[in-house]
């Protein structure tokens, strides 16, 4: 009885995912009726242009948005639990910034394979994460120190990233906008399977540690008393959540606030238990980012807004609301 109730998120979020996918395939500068869209998807395209746009351009892009959103949603949920801080998010913690710096450094050195780029981003993400954690650890119990040091490390990473881009021969403004504002239109569609593999493995690794995440929310001393090897477990959780963030950033640049808002919404509706929260956050994150991408392509069509701008416009007010609520509660 309880089991069925606790799985109620699955059908709802899968439906939301498909709705967002359809929206993402349908929306864009070339308008398309729903019948034309369904005909194209069923293999009877009304025109070869439709087929090319929907299947060759919009579909890979929607899938990329789904992967990136899922990775960010799940890693945000994990960071909030390990750090016991509801304001945590890979972007706010500076982890995304570190990942972007790692990726850009790798590109500057000339390597751009779909396996090496996320790996370099992973190194940058871990560096930023440990720096932030090391600073914040001196002020245990202060959630705002963590956020503050995260924002600072993120700024530092952005500054170094801009420095690298201005040194490089390619058009610096365009690439800077890609990395700092988040974008889903630069990646070669051939990279998709690799991104899926990387994100899928990291997600399963994270999901397997659901129980440890539950214990971390109780505080580290209690977690240890309940039998958790806190030090090793934290390292492993940082690594897997960092890997998810790194893959997302390597594919789409700095897309912020997905990891903040999505797990909050999931927790509010379906509770904090991580064996449900992680997959639910991944599904909702995927749906959210596909919808945000559709929005970014239609708001100023035919021009495109970077998708990170859309998520920040939606997510930053939510962050302020949480900050205000916490202050009021104390």
């Amino acid at each position: 009885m309880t089991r069925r109730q606790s799985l109620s998120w699955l059908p709802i979020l899968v439906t939301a995912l498909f709705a967002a996918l359809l929206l993402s395939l349908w929306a864009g500068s070339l308008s398309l009726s729903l019948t034309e869209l369904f005909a194209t998807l069923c293999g009877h395209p009304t025109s070869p242009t439709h087929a090319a746009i929907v299947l060759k351009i919009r579909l890979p892009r929607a899938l990329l948005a789904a992967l990136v959103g899922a990775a960010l949603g799940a890693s945000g949920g994990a960071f909030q639990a390990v750090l016991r801080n509801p304001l945590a998010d890979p972007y706010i913690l500076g982890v995304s910034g570190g990942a972007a710096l790692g990726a850009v450094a790798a590109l500057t050195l000339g390597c751009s394979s779909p396996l090496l780029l996320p790996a370099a981003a992973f190194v940058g993400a871990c560096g930023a994460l440990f720096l932030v954690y090391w600073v914040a650890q001196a002020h245990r119990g202060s959630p705002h120190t963590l956020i503050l040091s995260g924002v600072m490390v993120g700024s530092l990473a952005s500054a170094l990233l801009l420095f690298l881009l201005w040194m490089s021969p390619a058009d610096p403004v365009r690439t800077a906008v890609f990395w700092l504002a988040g974008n889903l239109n630069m990646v070669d569609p051939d990279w998709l399977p690799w991104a899926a593999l990387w994100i899928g493995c990291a997600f399963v690794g994270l999901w397997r540690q659901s129980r440890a995440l539950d214990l971390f929310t109780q505080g580290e001393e209690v977690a240890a008393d309940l039998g958790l090897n806190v030090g090793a477990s934290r390292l492993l959780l940082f690594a897997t959540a960092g890997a998810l963030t790194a893959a997302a950033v390597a594919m789409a640049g700095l897309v912020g606030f997905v990891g903040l808002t999505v797990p909050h919404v999931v927790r509010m509706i379906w509770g904090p238990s991580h064996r449900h929260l992680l997959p639910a956050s991944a599904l909702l994150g995927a749906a959210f980012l596909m919808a945000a991408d559709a929005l970014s392509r239609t708001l100023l069509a035919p021009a495109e807004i970077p998708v990170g701008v859309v998520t920040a416009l939606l997510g930053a007010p939510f962050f302020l609301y949480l900050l205000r609520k916490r202050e009021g509660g104390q």
Partner: protein
Amino acid sequence: MIAVENLHFAYDNEPVLRGIDLEVKRGEILAILGPNGCGKSTLLRLLRGVLTPAEGRVLWQGRDAVRLGRKAMARLAAVVPQSMQAPFPYPVREMVAMGRYAHQSGFLGSTSADRKAVEKALAVTDILHLGKRPVTDLSGGELQRVLLARALAQETPVLLLDEATSHLDLDHRLEIAELLVRLNREQGTTVVQVSHDLDLAAETSHRILLLAADGTPTALGSPTEVFTPSNLRQVFRVEVKVESNPYTGAPRAYPVRRGNAWQQKPPRIHLFCGGGSGGELLRRLHLAGGEITVGPLNRGDYDQVLASVFELETALEEPFCPISAATLQTARGLCRQAEALVVAPTVWGPGNLASLELAREALSRRIPVLLVDPSAERDYTGGRAWEMLQAIHAAGGRVVPDTEAVLDLLKDKPWESNDR
């Protein structure tokens, strides 16, 4: 079960525990009692290997607690903390199920043994009806029972309780005490509890370890052996009478209220002090309700500041000046009105030597004089002050060791017997 050998611990070179030797026997209920900050909770942390001792060691069935590994320890001992913040809204049942972590190996599912242990723990702690409620909505007492239930779901041979019942209402506190006694009797659960509640600890424990404020073990034994007025006075610095609870036979400590010490009118007492030597005397005499006068004292002196806070009548001298004739006269006036004089263990120099003269005068008028811990080491007058102190003692001044003894003596109203 747990052997503690010559355990020492310090936080940043500040010693917290000194030389604890203890053998927790299988199947006993042991209480650790002591004043705030004596290291009770630290001892509990050392027991479960969360902290590493500076010296000595803790052995669980022969194995060092620090090297035991968290999972192995969690199967041996469950901890009930004092309280916790609950930032994440887990339903009560899921929170209690976290207690099963050390028994689980799979990654998502739970076994029927897990579910049985959780339901049983919810039932015995009387929170079955809260199963689906988020823990963020619970009252302090309900949350405390959830924490106990989580520890019970751990199904360990040992329970460690850190002030676990301090937030509870009387009925639930007694219920949990009963539950612990029953678990102990029926399943042989060993219980180590850190507590503030002397009486409940005496009712439920087989043995008690009493720690002094500086972390030295003061007494270890059965409640009757440990609950002696002298032990409790030494540790908690209050006067208690120990009687046995007429219904259970367990010893009970009754604090003797000092405020009621003066039977009729509060006495008028003059105090000689300075440089902080009279701080504790001033505070305790003031709290006991006596009418206190002080001086001579220089303005800005530590004791003068305290006396002005309590609004006590004081013979005042300007800062850093020797005592003038006028101030001395004021002090003499205060001494004349006093029913008893108390001389604090202060440092004697040429500046305050005149105070001892006043004390001698008072003694000649048969006013009782109490000398608190007089010592030649605090004499900076080349022996004159020590000579006078000895003369006062010879003329009938009473030497007392500390503030406690002053209060004891004043309770007996020495001025009345002297008058006769």
